[in-house]
């Protein structure tokens, strides 16, 4: 009996320790009047791991919010639940503006539209957030190996139309921008995903490896993945960008053709991107929101910010208010039209 008691006691100790760790909101200070905001430090919840593209974007934004708001702005990486633990934490924060968050698109939208994740996401949509501003815009690209038989995007599409099956590796599965891009191209030229095949749930590095070892014909990824080509692979062969799926020429990739200048009728206006923006709970105070927007507009015009962003391979494209909402709505609509999750 004594033994059993000892085990139970040790378990009780562990459980009580665990209970100590319960959710304590990290937001600081009492909800001061919006006019005096910010009085204390601001925390940005990033639902992604430290060191990744999302994290870097959030940290750069935090640096300049600090510069223009005059208080400490820290980044808190809350991983887990395929980013939904973090998203829920952003939503449950107070609307006092001391807790903000970072979100990515289409990832967030793809997450809540996926019926298999319905119970985990708990009915959240982009409408539950105060979508403050889009900050980073990273257009989708299709690349092939330099020695690929497909010299242009047209070559690749002609081959698919003639019945050749083409596999394109993607950084992410259903719901990611890479996977969606492949499906959008397939739909536009009238073939299915049995002919123009998106890859599996590999990450960007694995997708690149599949391209280099010749298992796939092409890779769908983003400008940021290749803006400094090939510093890290150590291989002599290189890649060729077939198209950038954006309306504008990319400063980070000046020599790559944009989709509209390729003269492919079916794909005119087919744009794809991964976007990262600053969000907060839906309860965010309107006066606070105005102050954050003001700080971000100053950031956007800051030459130091532009320089830092360029060095880190981030294309900046700020969208505020209705423009931002309209953009996310467009992402949602395109998913629904593609019927990926049906």
């Amino acid at each position, binding site marked *: 009996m*004594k*033994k059993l008691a*000892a*085990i139970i*006691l*040790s*378990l009780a*100790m*562990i*459980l009580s*320790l*665990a209970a100590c*760790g319960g*959710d304590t909101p990290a937001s600081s200070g009492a909800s001061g009047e919006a006019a005096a905001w910010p009085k204390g430090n601001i925390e940005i919840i990033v639902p992604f*791991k*430290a*060191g*990744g593209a999302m994290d870097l974007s959030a940290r750069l934004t935090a640096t300049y919010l600090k510069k223009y708001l005059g208080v400490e702005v820290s980044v*808190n*990486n*809350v*991983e*887990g*639940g*395929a*980013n*939904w*633990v973090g998203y*829920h934490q952003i939503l449950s924060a107070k609307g006092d503006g001391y807790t903000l968050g970072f979100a990515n698109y289409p990832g967030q939208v793809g997450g809540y539209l*996926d019926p*298999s*994740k319905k*119970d*985990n*996401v*708990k009915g959240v949509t982009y409408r539950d957030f105060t979508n403050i501003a889009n900050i980073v815009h990273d257009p989708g690209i299709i690349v092939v190996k330099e020695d690929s038989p497909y010299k242009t995007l047209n070559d690749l599409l002609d081959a698919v139309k003639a019945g050749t*099956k*083409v*596999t394109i590796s993607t950084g*992410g*599965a*259903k719901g990611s921008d890479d996977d969606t891009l492949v499906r959008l191209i397939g739909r536009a030229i009238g073939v299915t995903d*049995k002919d123009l*095949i*998106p*890859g*599996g*749930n*590999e990450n960007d*590095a694995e997708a690149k*490896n*599949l391209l*280099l*070892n010749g*298992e*796939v014909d092409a890779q769908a990824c983003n400008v940021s993945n290749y803006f400094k080509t090939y*510093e*890290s*692979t*150590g291989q002599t062969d290189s890649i060729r960008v077939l198209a950038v799926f954006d309306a504008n020429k990319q400063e980070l990739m000046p020599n790559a053709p944009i989709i509209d200048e390729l003269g492919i009728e079916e794909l005119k206006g087919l744009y794809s991107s991964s976007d990262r923006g600053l969000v907060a709970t839906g309860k965010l105070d309107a006066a606070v929101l105005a102050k954050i927007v003001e700080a971000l507009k100053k950031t956007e015009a800051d030459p130091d910010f532009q320089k830092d962003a360029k060095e880190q391979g981030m294309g900046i494209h700020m969208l505020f208010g209705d423009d931002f909402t309209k953009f996310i709505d467009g992402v949602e609509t395109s998913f629904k039209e593609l019927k990926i999750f049906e």
Partner: protein
Amino acid sequence: MFENMAGALSELFTWSSALGLLIGVVGGMIIGALPGLSATMGIALLIPVTYGMRPSAAILMLAAIYTAAVYGGSISAILIHTPGTPSSAATCLDGYPMAQKGESLHAIGISTTSSVIGGVISAIALLLIAPPLARLSLNFGSTEYFLIAVFGLTLIASLAGDNMVKGLIAGTFGLVVGLVGLAADGSARYTFGVTGLLGGISLIPAMIGLFSVSQVMIQADERGKEAVKKEVVKISGRFLPTGKEFVHLIPLILECSVVGVFIGILPGAGGDIASWVGLNIAKSQSKHPELFGTGIVEGVAAPESANNAVTGGALIPLLTLGIPGSSTAAVLMGGLTIHGLAPGFELFSKYADITYCVILGFLAANILMGLVGWAAGRYLTMVSKVPIPLLIPCIAVLSLLGSYAASRNITDVYVAVAFGLIGFFFRKYGIPTAPVVLALILGPMSDKYMYQGTRVAMKKDLSFWQYIPTRPLSIFFIILIVLALFAPLVSKAISKSYEKKHGHIDAAEDI
């Protein structure tokens, strides 16, 4: 390789790296000498502590703990006839009799010399084999990675020790747990609507639970039992081997080291297996096999060189392919992950400074370990006198803090507690916990690469299974898998012949 050395050396000669190295070596020896604290558990607990450190210093510290703990375990084996880690169980056989004969310091000296040589050889093997293997891995496609994962899973049977059924229970449990989270096509699987489970069961909290929380409960469980009073023998004898002795031992040490490196490379097989294989080699080559067990130097040198040689070997598949070569290496993988370092060619190209700093530092750790052991090894027995009631709460606090710190997700703390309970019952019923971790890593890996391979095969109008034989490298891995299926029968035969001759050794549990 050599073009990266300058960067690696400048990374190594920073204060943080040097400090990580020293703390790793000394801390590792203490962890190893404490019966009940193995290298695996020590690393699982300390990963979260490294969160704020530079990646190079952090990984270096963890690797140093690994090798130093395996060495430190031999000191308890020699002085109190209790292996500090499972890797030193074989050392008890001759180490303790040597100590009883009044040659305790000499036994520690032989163990130190052999461990250092074994460790240094494994570090050199790591330096020479890992970079070309990483380059070769660029040719591996989805089918090869799938088969490598399956190869690792087949070795679970060999990890299982005496009872294969129990090993398979553990492995299957790990596979089932690995199903939780996002399936290969990105949809949610077995998450039961819990948001925190959408990303799957995180490795670090699961391992902290299995190895540390369960240990707390096991210790509490054993409080009632009458403690066997372990007699600490007196410290006496010369430390370093004589020149003649060294010349006599060196061929054996070298052979055991090479075998140890090889065992380390095999997924799942760790220092415990290597030390028995090492002892077997020593016996088969000896002119007087009947003297083993009476306290002869060969019986210490062979297992101690083999088990330290495992450490560097186990890091080879870990750094190049993301497949841990031992359960300790599996925990180390969690350390790589939280520092954003993905195993593979990028470690040897983009992050070459960090990786080579860790490898060179690991080499230095093995030498430093010898120096510290020479100067202070004899005092390590004091460590084994630390009262367990003091140790238990410390481990409990560290476990839960650690499981939260890794990703600041409260679900992870519940995961650690749940896995602590599971680990406790597993160990009570003699089910090994190492296969759980291996399956938890390799299950999702095989799942993912099979899905990927299916997509790749679609363009050739083949199914995944039809696609595999079209790749020569894949055929090579299929042969390896077939060989691995017979490995448990061989290793069982070896351990059987041992127990027959020496009786069963009451080793610390395989954790």
